[in-house]
C-alpha cells in the first residue's frame, strides 16, 4: 500500500518535473535565507547570551522568556507596540482609502496622474532621509510645524519632545511614508471592480452613500485584506522611524519591541533579544493567519 503511494508520488513528481525544476532554486533560497535564520533565532532564545554564538551553547530553557516577561519595560513596550500598530493600521488604511476613492472619482480629472505620483513618491523616498526631515519639521525650536501653528495663532505642538504627542508625531511621519503604497493597492482594486453593478443600483434608486457602502466597499475586500495584513506586519515591526526620530523616547514612550530588542542585541543580550523577536514573530503569524481565516470565513458566507 505504502509502496504504491510512494510510486504514485514519484510519478507525479516526474510528470511535473519542469514545474519543480523551476521552483526548486527559489524554494532552496527561501529555506536558506528565510526559514533557517528564523529557526536559528528561535534556537538562540533558549540559550544563555554569553554562550549563544558558540558551537556548544548553554541551554537555559524558557529562562530568557521569564526574564523579559518579568521586565516591566518589555511588557509596557509590547502593549505600546500593539496600540501603535492598531492606530497606525486604521489611520493608514482610512487615509489611503479616502485618497484612492478621491483619485478614482470624477472630481479629480485634471492632474490626476501628477497627484498619484506625488502621493506615491514618499514610498520610494529613502525612509531615513524622510524621517530626518520630519524630525526637523517637528523640532520645537526651528521646526516648520510649530512655526506654522504660531503664525495661525494656535498652541504649539509638543512633537517628539513630549510623551503626550511623540507617538502621534511618528504616526504622522509613517503615514506620509506608507499610505501611498496602500493607496495604490486600493486604486488597482477600484479599477477592476464591476461598474455595471453601480449603474444598476443607481437605476434602482440607490443613493451614492448606499452604492459606496453596499456595492463598492464589498468589492474592495481583497485590497482591504492585503493592506490590513501587510500594514499589521509592517507596524508591528516599527523600527527605522524610532531610530531616526526618537531613539525610543521621550521617556520610553516610543520604545517599541523591535527597538527594545535591538538595544539588547547591542548589549550582547542575545538570548533575551531573540526571545523578544520570537514573541513578536509569533504575534505577527497569529494575527496574519487570523485575519486571513476570518476573511475566508466571511467570504464563504
Amino acid at each position: 500500500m505504502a509502496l504504491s503511494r510512494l510510486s504514485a508520488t514519484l510519478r507525479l513528481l516526474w510528470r511535473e518535473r519542469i514545474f519543480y525544476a523551476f521552483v526548486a532554486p527559489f524554494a532552496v533560497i527561501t529555506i536558506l535565507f528565510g526559514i533557517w535564520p528564523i529557526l536559528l533565532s528561535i534556537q538562540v532564545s533558549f540559550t544563555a547570551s554569553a554562550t549563544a554564538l558558540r558551537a556548544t551553547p548553554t541551554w537555559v530553557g524558557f529562562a530568557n522568556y521569564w526574564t523579559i516577561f518579568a521586565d516591566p519595560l518589555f511588557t509596557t513596550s509590547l502593549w505600546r507596540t500593539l496600540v501603535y500598530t492598531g492606530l497606525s493600521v486604521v489611520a493608514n488604511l482610512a487615509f489611503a482609502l479616502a485618497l484612492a476613492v478621491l483619485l478614482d472619482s470624477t472630481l479629480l480629472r485634471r492632474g490626476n496622474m501628477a497627484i498619484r505620483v506625488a502621493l506615491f513618491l514618499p514610498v520610494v523616498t529613502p525612509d531615513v532621509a524622510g524621517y530626518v526631515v520630519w524630525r526637523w519639521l517637528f523640532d520645537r525650536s526651528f521646526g516648520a510645524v510649530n512655526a506654522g501653528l504660531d503664525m495661525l495663532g494656535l498652541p504649539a505642538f509638543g512633537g517628539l519632545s513630549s510623551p503626550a504627542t511623540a507617538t502621534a508625531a511618528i504616526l504622522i511621519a509613517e503615514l506620509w511614508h506608507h499610505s501611498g503604497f496602500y493607496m495604490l493597492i486600493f486604486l488597482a482594486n477600484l479599477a477592476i471592480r464591476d461598474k455595471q453593478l453601480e449603474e444598476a443600483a443607481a437605476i434602482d434608486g440607490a443613493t451614492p452613500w448606499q452604492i459606496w457602502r453596499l456595492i463598492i466597499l464589498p468589492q474592495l475586500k481583497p485590497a482591504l485584506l492585503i493592506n490590513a495584513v501587510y500594514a499589521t506586519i509592517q507596524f508591528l515591526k516599527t523600527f527605522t522611524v524610532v531610530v531616526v526620530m526618537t531613539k525610543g523616547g521621550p521617556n520610553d514612550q516610543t520604545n517599541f519591541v523591535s527597538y527594545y530588542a535591538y538595544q539588547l542585541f547591542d548589549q550582547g543580550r542575545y538570548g533575551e533579544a531573540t526571545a523578544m523577536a520570537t514573541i513578536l514573530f509569533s504575534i505577527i503569524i497569529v494575527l496574519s493567519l487570523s485575519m486571513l481565516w476570518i476573511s475566508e470565513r466571511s467570504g464563504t458566507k
Partner: protein
Amino acid sequence: MRCLTGLTGLVAAGMLATAPVHAQQLTIWHDLGDNGIAWFQRMGEEFARTRPGVTIRSQSFPTEQWFGRVIGAINTDSAPDLIFNNYERVIRVQSQTNRLLDMRPVLAASPDRTFLGEAELRVATYRNRMLIIPIQRVQMALGVRKSWLDRAGEPFPQTWDDVQRVARKFKENPPPGSTAANTFGFALQAARPRDLIHMLDLFVFGSGLEHTLIDPAGTITIDRPAHARVLQEFLRTYTSYGFVPPDTINHSFTEMYQVIEGGRAGMFRVGDWNVRRWEQPNTLGGDFVVGPWPRFEAGRENAVVAGGMRGVAIPENSPNRQLAQDFARFMLSQPAQQASLEVMGAFVRNDLNVSALTPLQQWFARAQHRLVPSDFPEATHAWYPELEAAFHRRLLTGIANPPANGDWSAFITATAQEMREAAQRLSRNN
C-alpha cells in the same frame, strides 16, 4: 661548480638571516574613527622599528556596532588581538563574555608605568580583574563661545549664578543670523542612559562634589543637601529654565553636536578629543574658550572633570596573545603617547612635548587646571550599570513631567528612596 656552491651558500645565508623576520599582523578594534586609524597607523610604524615585520591593522566601528561585533567575535573564537575603548564599555564586554585577560601581569612587566595613578588603576579594575591598561585620560571642560561672551560683555562664568546670567544674555542677544527662538544657553544630551548621567557627572564633579549617585560604601548620595541642589538645578536646566533646546530629551551625541556645531548653543561640554575638530573653520572655527565647570557653593573649588578612561584590553582567545601584550605595553611608551597626544588629544604620561599644539590643545595637554576624576562606580559596584539605568529612567520621567511649581525636592527625595531600594536589591542579587 665552485661558483654554484657559492651562490647556493649565499641564498642559504640570506634565508637564514631573514628567517626571524616573518610578517605578523595584529588586529585592534576601536570606535575612534579616522583619527584613531591614523593614531594606530603611526604607533604601528613606531612599533615596527623594534619588531620588524609586525604590522598593526586597526578597524573602527560606530560605538553601537562595536559592542555587538566585539562580544560576538569573542564568543565565537574569532576575536581580534586587542580591543580599545572607554573603560565602561570594556566592562560591558566582560560582563557578556567573561573572556578578557587580566592585564595586571601585562602591566607589571612594563618598565614604564609610574605615571599611572591610583585612580587610573582603580578604574581599570572590575570584579578583581584589571580589564584595561589605561592609555588615554578623557578630560571634559566647560566650553563657551568666545564671540558670544564678548557680545554679552561677560567673563568666563565661574559660578552657577554666572552661568545662569550668561545663558539668559545669550538668549536675549542671539548671534547675527539667529533668533531667540533657536538660540540656547546650553547644549546637553539625555536620550540614552549614559548620556544624561554623564552630563550630571560633569555638574557634580565639576562643582567640587563627589559621587553622582552612589558612594563606594553603597550609600545613595543624591538627596544630600549639596548634591540635591546640583541635581535640582540640573533638572531645571532641562525644563523650566529653558536653557537647552526643547527636544534635548531625545538628543544623543549626534544631535548635541549638531546643536553645538550649528551655533545654536553658547555653552557646552568640550572633551579633549573635540578641540582639534572644533578649531576647524567649518565647525566652531576656534571661537570658544574653555575652563572648569561652575561651582554651586562658595568655598568649593570647581574643576575640569576626568570623565573617562580609554584603555586597551586583550581577549583570552586573541590569536597573537603574546605579541598583543607587547603592543599593549608599547602603547604606554613615550613615542606612542606622544602620537596619542598629537592625533587624539588625550594621554596618560606627564613627560610629553606639547609645544607643537595650538593654545586650546595645550590647555588640555598641560592640565594645569584642577582635574577631578569621576569616581567610576562600575569598578566598585559591579551592578552599577543596572542602577544607573533605573536612575536614568527616573530622571527622564521627571524631565518629561516636571513639577508645575518647579520645586524638585519631593521628586529628589522619592528618587533617592527608590534608588536605595534598587541598590539593596541589586547588591543582594549579585
